[in-house]
C-alpha cells in the first residue's frame, strides 16, 4: 500500500543538508505537493502516480535550489535568523573535521610532510616577527616619546647627530615651544672609575644636564630626579653598576674617583636602562662637572654634544623647525649653510644614518629584507602544500564525487578544503611554537639580542593565529578551487586523469622552490667569499699579534716612553708604538683641510688625521713609498708630517717623491713639511676607498699603545706586559684588545648577514626537499604498475631509478637556469657596498647548483629505489 505520509517524509529528508531551505519553506512545499496530489487524485489518478507527478511538477530541483539560494540571504536578514544559519554551518564543520582527521590518519606520511613544511614556514615568520617587534619598540618607553626630538645639524658635507654646547640653552631661550632640553656627552677617552681598590674603565659614562630626567624617562630608585644632576661632581649610576662596585651596600652619598684625580659624589641610583634604547648609560654625571675634569675647549668649540628636546603638547615639529630655520645662521654667521633638523627620537634606532651616532644603529632596511626572506620561506611552504594536495587529488576525487552526488554544491566543497588547510595550518602553528622555542638561542646569537618567546603577550598570540589563518587560506586556495571542480560522473566512473594544466603548474611550483633555494645558496657562498677576501686582504699593515692598550692615567702617559722601553726588553715584544688619537679599525678624526702653498681654496683637500709617535709606523708595519718616518726628534720634526699616497694624489702631485720636502698648509695657516709618504693602508674598512690621511707627530698624550708581540706564548707575554704596567700604574687596570678583532668587527654586520642568508638557504632547501619527497613518493605510487611491467620485461634497477628521478632532476636544472641571473644581479648589487671586492666566479654558481642537485637526487632517489626494488608480482597483482 502506498503510504503518502511516508513518501512525503522521505522526500523531505532529501532536503536535509540543503541549508538554503528553511523549515517553513519545506512546510510550504509539502503543503503544495499534498494539494497538487489531492487535486490529481480528484481527477481520477491513483495516489502514487499523482504524488510522483506532483513531485515532478515542482520543477527541476537543481534550478529550484539555485533559486532558493538566491533569496536565502535576503530571507535570513529579513527573518533576522543569522544565528540559525551559523549553527547550520557549524554542524557541517563537525563533519569536515571528522573527514579531515580521517584523512590525516589514513595518510600520515603526507600529512606529516604538509604540517612539517607549514610549521617551518610559520616558525621563520614567528622568529622574524619577534625580532621586528623588538626593533620597532626602541626608545618608546619614554613618557614623552612622541614629543621627543634630537637636534641635528645639517651641513653641506654631512648631517651631524651632535651639536655644539650652546644649542640647547639657546633653543630653550628663544622658543617657547620647547618644553625641556638636555645635552648628553660621552668622552671619547673612557674614564677610569674607581672605588678604593676596584676600578674599571667605563665606556658608558655620560655627562648630562639637570633636565636629563625631565626629558628621558629613566626612573630613579634612589635619589631625587629634580636635584640629582645639579651640583658639579654629582653622578648617578645604574643598579647593576652599583652592585658591581658596592655589592649590596647603599651607594648614596659615597664618593668614587674619576681618572684617579677627581672625586664624584653619588646622588642617585637609576633603574637599568632597557635594551631597547639607542644609548645605554651606566653612569650619568652632572654637566657642570665636565669643564672641571676635562678641557674647557670642549664646551666652547667642539661639536660633540647630543642635544635632545621635548616639545610642548600639540606642537608639530615641522613648525618649530620652520621657525628655527635661521637658527644656525644667527650663531655661525649669515653665510652658514647649516640647518637645524629635528629628528624624532623613536626613529633613531631604525632610520638614523647620520654622522657621529652614539652607538651604531640598526637599519630599517635589514627589517625589510628579513621580512622579505620570512615571507619567501612562508610562500615556499604554502607552495609545498598546494603541490602535494593537488598531486594527490586522485585520492580525494572519489570523495568529492560522492559529495557532489549527495547534493553538495561547489561552495560547500571549497569550504571543506579550506577547513582542512586551516586545520592543518593550526596544527602547524602548535608545532612551530615548539620549534621557535628551540631556535630562539640561534636567533639571539644572530642578532645580538636577548629575545624571549612570551606566550602571554597578546600580540604574539594574535600574530601567530593570524599567521596560521593566512597560511591556511593561501595554501588552501588552489587545492580547494581545483578539487571542487571535479565532475561527479567522470570521477566515480574512474575516469579521473590528472589534467595537463595541473601538472604544468606543479612543475613550475617545484622550479620556483628550488630556484629560490639556489639564489639563497649562491648568496651565502658569495657573502662568505667576500668576507674571506676581506680577511685575507693585504690591509697595508700587519694585524696579527698586535695588542692595543688604552692609556688613561696621566702618570702612565708621562712616562710611557720608559714603559715602552721596559716592554721592549722582553724578547717576545717586537715593537711598541703610540697614538694620541686613533688606530686602524676605529674612526679617525676628519675634517682637516690641507692645501699646497699657493693653491686656491677649492684646491684644498679635506682629509683624515692621526697623531702618532715615531714607532707607530714601524709597529703597524706600514710601508713607506717615499722619504722616511718620524725619528723621535721632537723639536726638529715639530712641523713635519706624513701623508699617504691618496693624500699626495689628491693634492695634485704625480708621484710620492714629488711631495717630499714640500710645504703644505694645515688648517688655516699652519705650515708643515712633508717628511715622508706612507703607502696606502686600510685604516677604514674595505667598504670604503682609501682616503687621504695626514699623520702628525705627538709624544706627550698617548691614548693607546700598540704592542706587537711574537705569536708564541701569547698569554705569558700578556702577563709580563701586565706586570710591568702595574709597576707604573698601580691604579689603572690593564685592559687590552687585539687589533685583528677590532678590524674583524668592522665586518660583523656582513658576517651576520651571511649567517642569516645561510640559514634561509637551509630552510628553503629543507622545505623544497619535503615537497620533492612527497611528490616523488606520489609519482612512484602512481607508476607502480608501470614499474612492475617494466621490471617484468627486464629493466634494470638503475634504469628504473633514472626513469623515475629524471623528471624531477630536470626541474632542478631549470630552476638553476632561472636562479643564476637573479642571483648574479642581487649579489652584484650587494658587492657594490665594498670598495674592494671579489669578482663572482662561475665556479661559485656551479657549486650552488650542484649542491641543490645533490640534495634533490638524495631526496628523490629514496622513493625511486624503493619503487624500483619492489616485487613486480605484488605491484601487478592488485588493482
Amino acid at each position, binding site marked *: 500500500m502506498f503510504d503518502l505520509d511516508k513518501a512525503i517524509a522521505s522526500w523531505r529528508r532529501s532536503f536535509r543538508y540543503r541549508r538554503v531551505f528553511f523549515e517553513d*519553506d519545506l512546510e*510550504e512545499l509539502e*503543503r503544495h505537493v499534498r494539494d497538487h496530489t489531492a*487535486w490529481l487524485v480528484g481527477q481520477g489518478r491513483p495516489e502514487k502516480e499523482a504524488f510522483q507527478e506532483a513531485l515532478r*511538477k515542482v520543477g527541476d530541483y537543481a*534550478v*529550484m535550489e539555485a*533559486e532558493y539560494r538566491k*533569496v536565502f540571504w535576503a530571507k535570513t536578514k529579513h527573518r533576522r535568523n543569522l544565528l540559525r544559519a551559523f549553527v547550520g554551518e557549524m554542524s557541517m564543520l563537525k563533519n569536515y573535521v571528522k573527514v579531515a582527521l580521517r584523512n590525516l590518519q589514513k595518510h600520515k606520511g603526507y600529512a606529516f610532510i604538509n604540517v612539517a613544511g607549514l610549521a617551518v614556514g610559520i616558525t621563520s615568520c614567528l622568529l622574524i616577527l619577534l625580532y621586528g617587534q623588538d626593533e620597532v619598540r626602541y626608545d618608546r618607553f619614554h613618557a614623552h616619546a612622541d614629543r621627543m626630538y634630537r637636534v641635528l645639524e645639517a651641513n653641506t658635507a654631512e648631517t651631524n647627530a651632535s651639536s655644539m654646547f650652546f644649542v640647547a640653552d639657546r633653543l630653550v631661550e628663544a622658543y617657547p615651544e620647547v618644553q625641556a632640553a638636555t645635552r648628553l656627552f660621552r668622552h671619547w677617552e673612557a674614564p677610569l672609575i674607581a672605588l678604593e681598590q676596584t676600578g674599571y674603565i667605563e665606556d658608558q659614562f655620560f655627562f648630562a644636564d639637570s633636565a636629563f630626567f625631565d626629558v628621558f624617562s629613566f626612573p630613579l630608585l634612589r635619589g631625587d630626579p629634580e636635584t640629582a644632576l645639579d651640583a658639579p661632581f654629582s653622578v648617578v649610576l645604574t643598579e647593576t653598576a652599583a652592585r658591581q662596585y658596592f655589592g649590596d651596600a647603599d651607594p648614596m652619598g659615597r664618593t668614587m674617583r674619576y681618572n684617579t684625580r677627581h672625586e664624584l659624589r653619588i646622588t642617585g641610583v637609576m633603574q637599568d636602562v632597557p635594551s631597547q634604547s639607542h644609548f645605554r648609560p651606566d653612569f650619568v654625571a652632572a654637566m657642570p662637572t665636565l669643564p672641571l675634569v676635562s678641557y674647557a675647549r670642549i664646551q666652547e668649540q667642539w661639536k660633540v654634544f647630543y642635544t635632545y628636546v621635548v616639545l610642548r603638547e600639540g606642537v608639530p615639529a615641522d613648525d618649530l623647525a620652520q621657525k628655527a630655520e635661521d637658527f644656525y645662521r644667527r650663531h655661525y654667521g649669515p653665510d652658514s649653510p647649516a640647518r637645524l633638523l629635528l629628528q624624532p627620537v623613536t626613529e633613531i634606532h631604525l632610520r638614523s644614518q647620520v654622522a657621529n651616532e652614539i652607538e651604531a644603529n640598526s637599519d630599517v632596511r635589514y627589517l625589510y629584507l628579513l621580512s622579505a626572506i620570512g615571507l619567501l620561506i612562508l610562500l615556499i611552504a604554502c607552495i609545498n602544500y598546494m603541490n602535494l594536495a593537488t598531486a594527490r587529488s586522485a585520492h580525494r576525487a572519489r570523495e568529492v564525487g560522492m559529495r557532489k552526488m549527495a547534493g553538495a554544491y561547489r561552495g560547500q566543497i571549497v569550504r571543506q578544503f579550506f577547513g582542512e588547510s586551516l586545520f592543518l595550518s593550526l596544527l602547524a602553528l602548535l608545532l612551530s611554537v615548539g620549534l621557535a622555542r628551540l631556535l630562539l638561542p640561534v636567533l639571539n646569537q644572530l642578532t645580538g639580542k636577548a629575545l624571549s618567546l612570551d606566550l602571554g603577550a597578546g600580540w604574539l598570540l594574535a600574530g601567530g593565529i593570524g599567521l596560521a589563518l593566512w597560511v591556511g587560506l593561501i595554501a588552501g586556495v588552489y587545492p580547494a578551487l581545483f578539487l571542487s571542480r571535479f565532475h561527479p560522473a567522470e570521477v566515480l566512473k574512474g575516469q579521473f586523469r590528472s589534467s595537463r594544466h595541473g601538472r604544468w603548474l606543479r612543475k613550475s611550483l617545484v622550479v620556483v622552490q628550488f630556484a629560490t633555494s639556489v639564489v639563497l645558496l649562491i648568496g651565502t657562498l658569495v657573502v662568505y667569499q667576500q668576507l674571506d677576501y676581506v680577511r685575507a686582504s693585504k690591509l697595508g699593515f700587519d694585524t696579527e699579534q698586535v695588542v692595543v692598550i688604552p692609556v688613561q692615567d696621566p702618570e702612565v702617559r708621562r712616562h710611557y716612553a720608559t714603559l715602552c722601553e721596559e716592554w721592549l726588553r722582553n724578547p717576545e715584544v717586537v715593537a711598541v708604538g703610540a697614538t694620541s688619537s686613533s688606530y686602524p679599525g676605529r674612526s679617525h678624526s676628519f675634517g682637516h683641510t690641507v692645501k699646497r702653498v699657493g693653491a686656491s681654496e677649492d684646491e684644498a683637500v679635506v682629509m683624515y688625521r692621526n697623531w702618532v709617535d715615531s714607532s707607530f709606523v714601524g709597529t703597524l708595519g706600514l710601508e713607506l713609498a717615499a722619504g722616511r718616518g718620524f725619528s723621535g726628534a721632537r723639536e726638529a720634526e715639530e712641523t713635519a708630517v706624513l701623508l699617504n699616497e691618496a693624500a699626495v694624489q689628491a693634492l695634485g702631485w704625480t708621484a710620492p717623491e714629488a711631495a717630499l720636502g714640500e710645504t703644505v698648509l694645515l688648517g688655516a695657516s699652519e705650515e708643515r713639511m712633508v717628511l715622508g709618504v706612507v703607502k696606502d693602508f686600510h685604516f677604514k674598512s674595505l667598504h670604503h676607498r682609501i682616503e687621504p690621511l695626514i699623520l702628525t707627530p705627538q709624544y706627550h698624550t698617548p691614548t693607546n699603545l700598540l704592542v706587537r708581540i711574537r705569536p708564541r706564548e701569547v698569554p705569558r707575554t700578556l702577563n709580563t706586559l701586565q706586570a710591568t704596567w702595574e709597576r707604573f700604574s698601580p691604579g689603572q687596570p690593564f685592559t687590552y684588545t687585539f687589533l685583528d678583532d677590532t678590524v674583524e668587527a668592522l665586518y660583523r654586520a656582513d658576517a651576520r648577514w651571511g649567517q642569516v642568508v645561510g640559514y634561509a638557504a637551509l630552510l628553503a632547501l629543507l622545505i623544497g626537499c619535503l615537497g620533492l619527497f612527497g611528490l616523488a613518493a606520489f609519482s612512484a605510487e602512481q607508476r607502480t604498475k608501470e614499474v612492475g611491467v617494466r621490471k617484468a620485461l627486464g629493466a634494470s634497477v638503475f634504469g628504473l631509478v633514472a626513469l623515475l628521478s629524471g623528471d624531477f632532476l630536470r626541474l632542478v636544472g631549470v630552476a638553476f637556469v632561472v636562479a643564476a641571473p637573479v642571483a648574479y644581479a642581487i649579489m652584484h648589487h650587494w658587492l657594490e657596498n665594498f670598495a674592494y671586492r671579489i669578482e663572482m666566479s662561475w665556479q661559485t654558481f656551479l657549486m650552488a647548483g650542484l649542491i641543490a642537485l645533490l640534495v634533490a637526487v638524495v631526496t628523490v632517489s629514496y622513493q625511486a629505489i624503493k619503487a624500483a626494488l619492489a616485487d613486480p608480482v605484488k605491484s601487478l597483482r592488485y588493482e
Partner: protein
Amino acid sequence: MISKALVAASLKPIILSLLAHGEAYGYEILQRIENLSDGKLQWTAGTMYPVLHRLETKGLITAHWRPSETGPRRKYYRLTSKGSRVLEVEKRQWLDVHAVLLKLWGPELSFA
C-alpha cells in the same frame, strides 16, 4: 511555449496583480494563473515560491499562516500598500510598452 525571459519578467506584475484581488496561497496562485492563461503560463513551484519570498523581503507582500483541515498549514500572501504602489508603477510600464507594440502591429493585429 512562452519564452523564459518573458515568463520571468511577468512573474512579478502577475503575482502582485493577482494578490490585488485578495489573498491567496502558493498552490492556489499557480492554479489560477494556469487557468487564466489557458495553460500557456505554466509556472513551477520551484521558481514561483522564491519569487514570493523575495517580494516578501522587499515588503511588497506579507504572509501569514492559516491552519488547514488536513495536514500542514497554508501560507497565505497578501498585498501591502507599498506593494500596490509598486503595482501601479509596473502597470504603467507594461501598458506603455504595450501601447507601442499595438501601434507597430496596427491593423494586422488579430487574436487567434
